[in-house]
């Protein structure tokens, strides 16, 4: 069962430019499960886990492209997503309501109610 963290959206705009960000602070999102070939910066321990967008960081070059000396375009929105320890580690969590924030690129996120 998903345990969601509380999130207070920051009272300021992202300092780095962003356009067409699909998610907003407070939205419930799930990190796409599974693997993909190549270099990526989506930690394994968060794949398939559900959390809440804490803030939009801005649009940034895609590391999965940069790693192969391509230009990293198009830039993708990066979010700080917050997860509860209960969601990430289940019954083995050290303390259920402690949280983990990680930066996740938009193409690794889907709405939590996606099939």
């Amino acid at each position: 069962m998903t345990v969601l963290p509380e999130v207070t959206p920051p009272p300021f705009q992202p300092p780095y430019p962003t356009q067409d960000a699909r998610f907003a602070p407070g939205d419930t999102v799930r990190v796409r499960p599974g693997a993909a070939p190549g270099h990526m910066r989506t930690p394994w321990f968060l794949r398939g886990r559900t959390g809440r967008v804490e803030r939009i960081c801005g649009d940034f070059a895609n590391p999965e492209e940069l790693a192969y000396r391509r230009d990293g375009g198009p830039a993708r929105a990066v979010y700080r997503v917050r997860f509860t320890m209960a969601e990430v580690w289940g019954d083995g969590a050290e303390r259920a309501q402690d949280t983990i924030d990680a930066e996740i690129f938009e193409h690794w996120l889907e709405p939590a109610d996606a099939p």
Partner: protein
Amino acid sequence: MPHDHHDHFHHEGMSPSGHPYRPDDDQPLTYWQRMEIAVRELLVEKGITTAAEINAQIERMDARSPALGASVVARAWDDPAFKQRLLADGSAAMEEIGIDPSGMKLVVVENTARVHNVVVCTLCSCYPRNLLGLPPDWYKTRAYRSRTVREPRAVLREFGLELPEDVRVQVHDSTADMRYLVLPRRPSGTEGWSAEALAGIVTRDCMIGVAVPQLP
């Protein structure tokens, strides 16, 4: 009698104080060390850079230390408007007080009575080097990187930091383009302190989040 210091006879392989010499731990260069030397020498040979430029860059990197971060924290403690700007855009606030972020995108996370922040990079060793200098070795170890997201309270306890039950631990995994600095809580008893005195109690570990400022 290896510990007979009065005996001026030296055993084979023993130091003058009668202890065994510790073997040198020189290792052959690794593949990547050889690669670095080869690329560096080629770049110098081709006139693309110079040994002096490389030395100057190393000196610039070595000159950064946690003192820079401590000065930012001290300023934020004393100037609420600066603190708000720092939380909204860490890099712009650094520049405002004359610290060059050199492209680093800084996010400052504030400790409160209810939330304690701690920073880790589970994927590698991302660290706000332009503000804190080079990371400590433990920050890059597999143990710190894997345990901090799994059992942060146990890790903090090993650093000597026991958090109250009603404080939420908020772990920050630097997985992409941001770098994180923890803004510790200002200890009571520091009212009226100078910026230098305040900065003096802000250690590197406080800004990573594995410690909190202590009064001397």
